[in-house]
Structure formats: C-alpha cells, structure tokens
C-alpha cells in the first residue's frame, strides 16, 4: 500500500466524452493513456513519477475492466523490456520511471527496442528529476533520446496539451516505428488543472489476444545482419516519418508576434516560466501574447529543420532557452542554421547560466541580457539588486532526514556506537532513505553508486583486519542488489558486511509493496524473506534482526559481523516497518479502538527538563524530528534542553540510545492507557493511595526546608 491513496481520484478516470476532468498532471496522463486505447502499462516508482505508479496501481481494477494489463515492474529495465510487446504486435504500451537514474537502468532494453523499432505505439513516461527538490545527479534524458534515436516530447505545462501529447506520442511512435519518450518535469507531475475528457477506449488488441496468436519477425531482433539494417531504417525511414508527423500535426507551437528581428526558441516544459519572465520585462501578458515571436518545442528531439529554418529566417538573433547541459539543442540549432545558410545568431548558454534550474527569475535575467545585446531598445532598465534582507547564514539549512520513529535511525545509531569501539568504518551507501545517514547527526557513508549497488560499491575493498560495510535497502535488494551485490560478493569471496534495511516497503519512493513486504495483496506475491534469498545465492553468515529499535542488539550484531573469525560475505537483515507507513496503517485502527471503548496503550517518550543538562548527546545519536530542543526552563542554565514533542510515536530509540550509550537518566517512557480495564483501575487506585500519600509527605518535608 502506497503512501498516498488515489482511490477517490481514480473514480474520476471514468469520466466520458465532454466531461470536464479536474486533477493533477499524473492523473491527466493516466486518463490520456486510457483514452488512447493503451493495452499494457508498467513502470518503477521514484520521484517525481512515484505517484503516477500509485495512480496506476489504484486504477488497476479500472484498467483490468478495460482489458488493460498493468504491473509494477521489478525495475526500470524490466519495464523497458516490457515494451517488447509492441515490437511484433500493434499493442500500445506505456511505461514510467524516474529519470535519468531509471533511464540508466533501462537503457539496455531501450537500445534494443529502439534498434528493432516498434509496430504498436511505445510510450516511455519519464519524470525528469532536475532542479529544486531533486535527489539525483544532474543529467539529461535528452542524451538518451539522441543516442538511441527515440523521440522526446517535452510538453508545455498545460493539462489539455499534456493529454493531447500522450495520444500524439502513441501515434507518432506508430507512424515512425520509434519509441517515444514523454518528459514530465517535477512540478508538472503535480500541477493541477482541467481538460475536456473523452471516453476511455478498450485496446483494439489486448495482450492476451496477442499471446494467443504469436507473430514472429526475426528482422526485428538485434543480431547481424538485422542490426545493420536497423541503422539504415532509423535514418532513411523512421527519422523522416517522425519529422513528417510532428510537422503535419503541428506538435510544436508558436506564440507571440509573427515578424520580428529577434525571437526565442524554448523547450516546451519551460514555456510558462519564459512567459512569466517576458511578462516581468513587459513583453508578454498572462495569456502568452508575447511582443516577440516564440517557438515552443513540445517535441524537443528531433528538431524539425523546416520549422527552425522558417523561424530563424530574417532574424538577426534567436535565443534558445534550454535547461541543463550539454546544450544539445543549441548545438543542433547552430548546425541547422548553418546548413540553411542563414545569418542568424543563435544565443543560448552565453546569455543563460550553464548550470542550474531555469526558474522564471533566471530566464528573466537571461532574456534581459539577450535583449541588451540584440535589441537594446527593448531591454529593461538595469536595476541594482536589492540588498538582501538577511544573510544566508541567518536561516539554517534543513536537509531531508529520517522521519519520526524511523526504524533506520537506530541502525545508524548502533553503527556510531560500533565505530566508537573499533574505529571509523568504510561505508558504501546505497540509494534510499537510508542515504540520509550521510547527513548530520550520523555522518556515515562514503559513496553511493546507484540503486541496489551498495554491496557492489564495496567490492573492491578486500579487508585485512577491518571489514568494510555496505548498506542496501530492501527496495534496492530486489531491484538488482541480490545479483549485482550479494551474488557478486559470494562469487568473488568478499569478506565485507552488508546491512540490508528491510522496512517492508519501497519506502523512499512512497511505500510501494515489494517482494518481501509483509502485506498480502491479491495481485502480488509478497512475504518472500530477504535472508532466504541471500542464503539462496550462497551466503552462509546471514542474520535477521527483527527489531531495529533494539539499539544495543543492533550494535552487538554489527560488532559480531565485523569481528567474526568466519571469512566470506556477511549479511545482516535489519527489520522494522517503515514508520511513515506504519502510522498511516495503524492510526485509524487505534482511533477506532479508542472510540469503541477498547483498552489501548499509547507510548511516547519524554525528557525531564530538570535532569537534562543540555549537552544534546542524545540528539547527536538519534536525530529524530520529534526529539528537539527548547529553551531551558532553569534560569541558571544557558543551553536549551532536549524535549520530545507530542508527535513522538513511542518507537523507543531515544531511550535505547541513552541506555546503550550510557547517556543520561532524563528519558522516560510514558504509557498512556485509554479505556483502562478493571485490573488497571484497581492497580492504579492502590498505587495512587500509597504513592500519593508518600508524595504528599515528601512535598511537605521539601516545603519545610525550601527557600
């Protein structure tokens, strides 16, 4: 079960012809797929596309009803390979993932499907995770489109256009026998808006029907001599067909005036930001009526030579607003302009920053610079930047971190304690929430090489004395870590320790189920233990700890693994349910139980301010958001005291940490019993009498000797 449920929204996907559909970008995409007669859908979760996968999953019943096959793929490679169904059969298929990391994983299959080409429309929906909030490396999907020759749609942020582009994407793919990538920028996925719906369409051919009557064409397989033929096909047949489709259907758009000495070419996804920038300069309005010609590349690859030539002809300079690097479009524009023998100056990265997100403010400055160089009369006045109201240091950084009660935190608390005993460790980190270990307060982790690659990242370290430690999440383990990490370590006789964080979900991407998830769902097979799989590929030293919150136990297990005389790769599975998902699961249950009069014990932690001395060792070992500080109520002490907020979920790590690290007696656990039963009440009454009497006596004595 995922972090966010789209069950209610999914109902709207049934909207028919003429109805107004309101919702987010990802819902619009899903609706567009259904309207396009898609036959199969797959993908792998990851921001910003996670919620699209969740929408698919929540809509799986609706899709099944339409004869559409949906599956949550094991990895992006799996998803991309699924597109094989469109090679021989006129089946429309769509897959989705986070780019560029997912595209990296998928690229083997993508190269193959792009080489052989497709019969049915193949659409690859990528969430481009670039700019603010991004958690990955700064690369462009554009490069993949170029190298494999797949078309890249980068739609202007507008739901009606997005829906059209999905349908055109399939048609373009079929017209040119080429897979098409649809790139959604981070904020476009969650952009709200509306469009006029059309009826959902059953696929003319379902995957089941296709499997019934197999069709074979070896010329579609990448093996000599077919692979050489594919290259010729790509150049001579598919490329022109693709260009013709884009041109005929006017997928790229023009805004603003038609004749001018200058103009702007922009990636579709950046158009709204560009328009806002022009508006701020006084060259456009809220409806895109620009005072100069703007050519919007809803298809970012390939460029359409005739359109480019027509746009550039007669202009002295054209600015290309292209985010990311290298500036592939700018290079191509220069080539096209040269070939057309035009005298137009292509401006781009000389006006705009070479790196970083192109926000409206950045574009505004770039356009202003362009105008000053090529149309000075229209350039805005150069104003000095206002003095900053605050120095940057006035506002503390707030990196993402482990959630309240996260079961991964105690693993790293335990590692910190182990490091105190045996010294610093080399730690090969992995992708997932556990990567937050590299941040304060843990400072654990040396490298991260990709999803599920924690163990592989430690494989060069052949220890003599001190073993290296690799971290892997359960998501990464099933994605590829079992083979590329664990299998590899067995085969090469590693002697390192791999700690596998088994929290029951693909947690970082929003809590999707995986093979080892504890939930049972009708559509999936779960409850496949990680330790069993690791032993299956030859691990002999494998342990599973079922409660990561037991910090001392975790510490001892890690210590054991690092000091055991046994040679060979070691696997420690650290299990406890992702707290974010757990809370979502149990909160309604608890509220219901309390309401119905059942006895419920809630646990939470607290700190006694009068014994806390304000050293914050506990925070440095835990880092829980609910463990914070507040002004010291003691007028003599200066340092703030530790404090547990009511958001505490009672996981117990702070207490365990203070135990294991011999910190301080300030922590207490409060058990709050709702609807106490008879035994509780009798015990409480008895305690109340005795303790109450003693406390009153003690208070009297204290008052007598008090100030």
């Amino acid at each position, binding site marked *: 079960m995922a972090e966010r449920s789209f069950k209610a929204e999914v109902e709207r996907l049934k909207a028919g012809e003429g109805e107004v559909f309101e919702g987010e970008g990802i819902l619009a995409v899903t609706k567009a797929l259904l309207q396009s007669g898609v036959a199969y859908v797959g993908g792998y979760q990851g921001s910003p596309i996670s919620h699209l996968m969740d929408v698919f999953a929540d809509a799986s019943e609706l899709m099944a009803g339409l004869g559409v096959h949906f599956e949550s793929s094991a990895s992006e490679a799996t998803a991309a390979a699924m597109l094989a169904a469109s090679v021989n059969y006129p089946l429309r298929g769509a897959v989705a993932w986070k780019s560029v990391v997912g595209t990296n994983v998928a690229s083997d299959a993508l190269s193959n499907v792009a080489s052989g080409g497709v019969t049915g429309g193949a659409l690859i929906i990528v969430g481009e995770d670039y700019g603010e909030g991004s958690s990955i490396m700064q690369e462009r999907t554009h490069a993949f489109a170029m190298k494999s020759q797949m078309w890249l749609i980068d739609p202007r942020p507008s739901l009606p256009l997005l829906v059209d582009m999905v349908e055109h994407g399939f048609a373009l793919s079929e017209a040119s026998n080429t897979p098409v990538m649809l790139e959604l*920028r981070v904020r476009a996925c969650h952009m709200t808006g509306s469009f006029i719906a059309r009826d959902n369409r059953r696929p003319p051919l379902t995957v089941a029907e296709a499997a019934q009557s197999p069709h074979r064409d070896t010329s579609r397989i990448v093996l000599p001599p077919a692979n050489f033929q594919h290259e010729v096909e790509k150049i001579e047949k598919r490329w022109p067909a693709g260009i013709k489709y884009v041109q005929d259907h006017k997928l790229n758009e023009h805004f603003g005036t038609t004749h001018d000495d200058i103009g702007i070419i922009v990636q579709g996804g950046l158009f709204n930001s560009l328009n806002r920038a022009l508006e701020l300069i006084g060259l456009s309005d809220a409806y895109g009526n620009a005072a100069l010609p703007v050519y919007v590349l809803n298809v970012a690859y390939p460029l359409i030579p005739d359109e480019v030539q027509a746009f550039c002809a007669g202009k002295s300079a054209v600015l290309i607003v292209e985010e990311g690097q290298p500036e592939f479009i700018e290079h191509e524009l220069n080539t096209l302009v040269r070939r057309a023998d035009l005298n137009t100056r292509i401006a781009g990265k000389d006006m705009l920053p070479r790196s970083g997100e192109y926000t409206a403010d950045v574009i*505004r400055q770039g356009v202003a610079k362009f105008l000053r160089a090529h149309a000075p009369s229209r350039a805005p006045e150069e104003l000095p930047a206002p003095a900053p109201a605050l120095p940057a240091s006035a506002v503390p950084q707030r990196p993402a971190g482990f959630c309240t009660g996260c079961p991964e935190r105690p693993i790293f608390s335990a590692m910190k304690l182990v490091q105190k005993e045996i010294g610093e460790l080399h730690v090969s980190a992995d992708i997932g929430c556990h990567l937050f270990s590299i941040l304060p307060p843990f400072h654990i982790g040396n490298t991260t090489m990709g999803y599920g690659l924690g163990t592989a990242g430690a494989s060069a370290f052949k220890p003599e004395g001190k073993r290296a430690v690799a971290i892997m999440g359960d998501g990464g383990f099933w994605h590829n870590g079992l083979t590329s990490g664990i299998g590899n370590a067995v085969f090469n006789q590693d002697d390192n320790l791999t700690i596998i964080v088994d929290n029951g979900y693909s947690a970082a991407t929003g809590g999707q189920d995986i093979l080892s998830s504890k939930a049972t769902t009708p559509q999936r097979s779960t409850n496949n233990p990680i330790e069993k799989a690791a032993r299956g590929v030859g691990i002999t030293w494998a342990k599973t700890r079922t409660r990561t919150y037991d910090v001392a136990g975790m510490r001892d297990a890690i210590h054991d693994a690092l000091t055991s005389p046994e040679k060979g790769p070691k696997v420690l599975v650290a299990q406890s349910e992702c707290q974010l998902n757990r809370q979502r699961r149990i909160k309604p249950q608890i509220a219901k139980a309390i309401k119905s009069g059942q006895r419920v014990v809630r646990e939470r932690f*607290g700190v006694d301010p*009068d014994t806390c001395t304000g050293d914050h060792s506990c*925070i440095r070992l835990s*880092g829980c958001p609910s463990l914070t500080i507040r002004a010291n109520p003691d007028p003599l002490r200066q340092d703030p005291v530790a404090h547990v907020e009511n958001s505490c979920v009672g996981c117990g790590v702070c207490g365990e940490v203070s135990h294991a690290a011999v910190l301080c007696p300030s922590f207490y656990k409060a*058990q709050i019993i*709702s609807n106490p039963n008879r035994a509780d009440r009798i015990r409480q009454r008895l305690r109340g009498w005795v303790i109450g009497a003693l406390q009153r006596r003690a208070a009297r004595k204290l008052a007598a000797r*008090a100030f």
Partner: protein
Amino acid sequence: MSTSGRISIAVLGLGGQGGGVLADWIVQLGANNGFVTQGTSVPGVAQRTGATVYYVEMIPKTGTAQPLLALMPVPGDVDIVVASELMEAGRAILRGFVTDKTVLIGSTHRVYAIDEKSAMGDGRASGERIITAAKERARRFIGFDMDAAADRAGSVISSVMFGALAASGALPFPRAAFEAAIVAGGKAIEPNLRGFAAGFDAASRASETPRQARVDRAATTAAGLALQVRVDVKLPRAAHSFAIEGVRRLMDYQDADYADLYLTRLESLSGSADLVTEAARHLALWMSYEDTIRVADLKVRETRFARVREEVKAGDDQIVQLIEYMHPRLEEVCETLPATIGRRILASDRLSGLLGRFFTKGRHVETTSLRWYLTLSLLAAGRRWRRSTLRYQTEQARIQAWLDMVRTAEPDVALELVKCQRLIKGYGDTFERGLDNFNRIVARYRAGGLTAAAIAGLREAALADENGEALEVALAG
C-alpha cells in the same frame, strides 16, 4: 496582484506539516470562486522532514483564453507567502519571495533544524532577526504561534494557517468560501474548522501571545528569608537574581546549611559584579551536581508526575505509567556510597569486577510501580548522608580548587575561568568528557600565559565537537 488580477501564493513548510493539504484547499477555494487556479508541489525526499514549497496561482476567469500560470514562485512576484515555521518565513525572505507587495503569514514557532539541535551548547538561530526582517520587508506581516494555536484548538497547523489567510483579507473571498473548501476536502472537517477558526481569530487580533514574565520567587521559610537578606546585603545587585535562584536550588538539593556554604563561597570572591554574578550561576550549578540521589529525588516528586501528565496530554480518564531509562554504572553507585567504601571498591579490580557485573545493563525502571517508587524514594532519602558520599567529597574538592584558582586570577581571566564550569554537565561518558575538557583547559591555564580571550576561545572549541578535535587544535595552537 498583477494587472491581470492574478494572485500568486507560495506555501513554505516542512514535509509532514500538511502544506499539501493547505495548498489543495487554496486551489479549491480559487477554482470554486471564479478563478482559474493551478497548484504545484515538489514531490520526493524533500517531503521527508526537509523544507519544501507549494505554489498556487489564480487568475479571474475571463472568456475562453487560457491563462499561462507559472509552476514556481518568482522572486519579487509573490502576493502571499504562508510559512509554517519561523525559519521557513526567513527562507521565503532570503529567496526574495517577500517584497513590499507581499502579505507574509508566518507561524512564529520554531522547528529546530538538525544543526541547531545537535550543537553541544546553544546552536539556535536568532528568531528575532527573522521577525525584524519580516516586518521590514513584507507589505504586511501576520505572525503568531500557529503551532500552539493548533494545539489549543486540537487541530493541525495547516487549518490554522488557512484561517490566518482568510483573516488577512489578502484573497478576495469571504470566510464562508474558505470554510466551504475545508468541507469539500472531506477530511477531518470538524477539527479543521476548529483550527481554521482559531487561526482566523488569532490573525484578526494579529498580536503575539504575551510571554510569561519571570517572577523571582520570594522566600517562604525563615531560613530562606535569612539567606535572602544575606544576599541582599552582601552581594552586588546584579548577582541577586542568580544568587537567590542558587540558594533556592541548594536548599532544595540539600539544606539551608549547604546554601549557607554557597553564599560563603560567593562572598569570598571579591571581584567585579560580573564575576560574582556569573559565579552565582556556575557555583550553584556545580554544587547541585547530579548524583543518583538527586536524580531519584527529582524523579519521584509529585510535581514531576503532574508535569508529565500534562506533557503527554493525558486525559482525566487515562492512566499514565512512567518508565525511566536508567543506566547507573558501578562508578555512580560507588560514588553514592560512603567515601571510604566507595573508594575501596573502585580501587580493587576484584571487587569492581564482581560488583560491576550487576551494573552493565541499562534498567527500565517503572517509577509508577510501588516497588520502584519505594526504591527510588529510599535512594532519594540518601540526601541525609550525602555529605559522607565519595561523590560529595570529590566534587567539593574540585569546587574548592576551582574557586582558589579563580580567586588568584586577574579579574577578566577569573570571569572566563568561572564560565568554564559550563563544560561540566551531563552523566556518564558525557560528564567525563566535559570534565576532561575542563581539566585540560585549566591545566593549560596553569602552565601559564593564557589571556581571557584565549580561555573563552578554548571553551568554544571544547563545545565545537564531541571528539575534542577542535579543542586539541586550539590547545596546540
């Protein structure tokens, strides 16, 4: 608002604070009241406790032309900023979202960032600076503790912010339209409306909840009165507040005689008012060192039980049980024994080894159970023979040595030496680390040639990291 009537709203918050819910309400509000409205957010790990921005734009519906709405706030072009925390309001200012056209609605409570929390001393950023900048930069700043308001209303901060937004009048919709959006949202309608009303009212008043003024407590006993008179007569005025607090603390900690010793020690410091004031603070803290007797005493008090009940928000019909996480080591136990016995056990490897086995594990002590309550009460009663314990003797010797050193130092140096007591705090490993740092600084001072500024620098270095690396460098330098 731009000439087109477009309104741009940025919501800055932390993952998990309900910024998304608030943004959804605003989108609903606009869409249902004749505006083309668009909202966006950044999904992903930013929402795992990190800072994140939700953004909404709305523009009056006119004809068929489709407006182009931006997907993120543009510096200098944001009409309304809603920030769910004080530093996030600061971040909005820093990013240029707050200008003289902006209505800034910000909660003044703090959610501390990890660097602020994990500092060994006080790492908190200045909130005053943000509030000053907010008042300076924004067209209007509506700031109050929305977290506390949510708490009082039994609601969440997102609904309080929505209420404040309604009250600000920055959006051209009546209150009922806002409430309709909450109802349309369909989730936790009742508490959300409560929070909304609380936010609306607080923003209409738009004033800070007054801070509680600190009251110097007057003496309640004859012994207390006598000591108070002594403070008034013998100590400089500036030191009175700390000294009274010190006397109060030590009478509570031990007895009037002990407080008497405190004042005698203070009076022996013939220095500036500054020195005596700081000494009044630090001497009281040192003399009320946390031994097992003190910890037990504080844990079993009636006032503590009441405080915990309040803190965990226990209802009258709920039972609260308390479990302490205690980890007394053999050292702490021996220190509470009479000095000769304690010293003998610690000196003997055989005895330490034998007894130490009982104190290697942390204990879960249920204070609300009769057994543990009585045990802790007995331990607390050890106050009567505290003067004979090993720890008492050790600490008094340390205090004496410290005071002797202070007495013979130059005035400015003496003040810094007094302040070094701040390093000694905590329990177990933490206490030992602090004491060790203190001793190293003192040893360096005794070796000669340290100025007051140098001592202050060493003290800061000792608080810079846990492994003593900064102090090592500073001592070497």
